[in-house]
C-alpha cells in the first residue's frame, strides 16, 4: 500500500525529545513501525511518503536527522540526497539511507553521494536504534553550530 497523504503525524508532541527525525518512506506500514519505535526512543518523528515533495518537507521541518528510502515515487532517494548535499543548509544533515539487501550498488551509490549510514532491508529495530545512536554526536554537534549561528 502506498502512502499518499503528505506527512504522518508523530506519536509524541514535537519538541520533547533529543531531536527531530524525518522519515521519507512510501511504504506506510514500515513508516508506522519506524515512527513508533523512534518516538518511543524519545525522538520527534515525522513521516513523509513522497519523493518529489521530500526536499520541501526537509526545508519546512528542518529535521536533525533524515531516514531516507531509495525507491520513492516522484524522486529517488539518491536524487534527494544529491540535492541535500548541494545545498549549504543541508550539506551536513545526517542521513540514514534504507537500501535493499543484495543491492550492493545502491550502498556504493549512497556512500558516494554522502550518506552517513545505511540500513539494509529487512533490518531489525535494534539495528535502526543502534545506527541512530551512533549518529547522535554529529547531530548534537550540528545543533550546537546552528545554535551559535
Amino acid at each position: 500500500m502506498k502512502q499518499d497523504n503528505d506527512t504522518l503525524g508523530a506519536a509524541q508532541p514535537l519538541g520533547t525529545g533529543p531531536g527531530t527525525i524525518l522519515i521519507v518512506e512510501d511504504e506506510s506500514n514500515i513508516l508506522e513501525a519506524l515512527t513508533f519505535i523512534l518516538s518511543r526512543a524519545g525522538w520527534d518523528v515525522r513521516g513523509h511518503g513522497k519523493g518529489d515533495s521530500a526536499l520541501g518537507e526537509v526545508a519546512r521541518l528542518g529535521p536533525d536527522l533524515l531516514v531516507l528510502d531509495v525507491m520513492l515515487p516522484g524522486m529517488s532517494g539518491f536524487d534527494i540526497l544529491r540535492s541535500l548535499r548541494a545545498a549549504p543548509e543541508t550539506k551536513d544533515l545526517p542521513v540514514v539511507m534504507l537500501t535493499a539487501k543484495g543491492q550492493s550498488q545502491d550502498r556504493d551509490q549512497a556512500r558516494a553521494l554522502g550518506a552517513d549510514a545505511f540500513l539494509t532491508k529487512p533490518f531489525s529495530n535494534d539495528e535502526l536504534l543502534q545506527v541512530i545512536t551512533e549518529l547522535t554526536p554529529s547531530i548534537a554537534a550540528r545543533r550546537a553550530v546552528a545554535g551559535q549561528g
Partner: protein
Amino acid sequence: MPQSGSPWRQGVLRKSHCKFSKEIENSVKMAIDTSTDLTGSRIREQRMARGLKQGALAEAVGVSPSYLNLIEHNHRRIGGKLLLKLARVLDVEPSTLTEGADAELSALLDASARAQAGLGAETDRIDEMAARFPGWTALIAAQERRVQRLDAQIEALRDRLAHDPVLSEAMHEVLSSVAAIRSTADILVREADLDPAWRGRFHRNLHEEAERLSEQATGLLAQFEAPDAEGGSPAESVEAMFEAAGHFFPAVEAEGQAAIAGILDQAPGMDSAAARAMGQTRLEEYAEDASALPMERFAEAAEACNFDPVRLVMRLGAEVAPVLRRMASLQPESGVRPLGLAICDAAGAMVHRRRLSGFALPRVAAGCPLWPLYTALARPGQAEVAEIEMPHGARFQSWAVAEMRGGAGFGVAPQVRGVMLVMQMPPDATGAQAIAAGPGCETCTRANCGARRSGAPAV
C-alpha cells in the same frame, strides 16, 4: 582481408595447421590403440566375471596362456577366428568384446573430467572403466547430466537476478514487506504495555503485509522457474526453440524461408509478437546460411576436415562467419565434439547463442572481455583462432570473426556482428598459449586479471 587471401591470422593459422597434423596422427594412433586396448580388457573382464582361469580359457580356444596374457594386457591385437572362439567360450556376442563404450556415455564422462581438470581423471581409459565398472560409469554420467542441467539453470537465474528489472522490482517489494513485518512483529512482541489502539493497528498492518507477501512470493516463484519456452522473455523463447531443435531445422534446410512460418506456429512461446519477430529474424539468418552451405555437403566437408573451421573455410571457399554458424548446426551423430556458438552485436550484446557445458555464455550479462568474440570486433573480417582456458582449467578452442552486414550505400554504416565458435579441446591436445579467460567478470573466479572491470573475484 590479410595476406594470401586467407581471412585467418597467419601466425595462428600455422600453429593450427601444425596441430592439425598432430591431431590426425594422434587420432589414428588412438584408433589403433583403442581396438587392442578395449578388446583385451573386455576379454579379461568377461573371463574373470565367469571365474575362469587364464590357462583354462587359453586351452579352450587353443592358444598358450602366455599369448592370452599378452592379449588381455593389450599387447596383442586380435580379431577373426580367435575373437569368435573367445566370444563363444565366454558365451557373449563378439561385439561385446569389440564395441567401445556408448558414445554419449563417453562424452558425459569426458565432460565431467574436463569440468574438474585438476583432478587428473584418466580420460584415455574411459572405455576401460565403462567395461569394468558399468554401474559406476552410469552413475558418473547421470551426475554429469544433472550438473549440466543445474549449471544451465544457475546461469539463467544469475542472468535474471543481475539484470531483470521485473525481478529486481519484485525483490524490492518482497524486501519492503519483510521489513515491515519484522519491525511490526518486533514491536508487538517487545512492547508489553502497548496501547490497545496501536496494538490493533499493528495487527492489521501485519495481516496486510502477510497477505501482500504471499502474493509476491507466488509471483516470484513463477519468475524463478527454470527457463522454458512458456512465459519466458522473447530471447529465452527463441533460444528454447533452437535448443529443442538441436540448432538444426530440417524443414528450413529443405524448403528455405518458406518453412519458417510453420516452425514458428508450432514452437511454444512464440505467441507474443516480440518473440515471433525475433524468431523470424534468427530463422531467416539460418535459412540464408543453409542456402549458401547446404547441410549434407557441409557435414561431409566438415568431417573430411576433422571439424576444423580453418580447413573447412579453405575447402569450401566460403566466408568464415557462415561456416562458424553452420558448424553450430552440425548434429552429434556427425562425430563433431560438443560446441558452443556466440553471436554479438557491435555493443557486445549477445544476439544468439548455443550453449556449451563448461563454457558459460551469458545471455544478458557481459561475457569475458578477453574472448576473441570481442577482440574480433576491433578487426572486422580478420578471423582469429585461439585457445581459451577457463578459471577451473578446462580448455577450449575458439574461432572468431566480426562480419559486416548491410551498409551497401555511401554514408550507410554497416552493422558489425561478432561470431565465435567454441569447441572442447580434443582429449589428447596439448595447447601451449591459451588465453586465460573466464565466463565474464560477474561470475569469474580468476584473481589478478588485468581485464577485470571491477570488484573482487566471485567466490
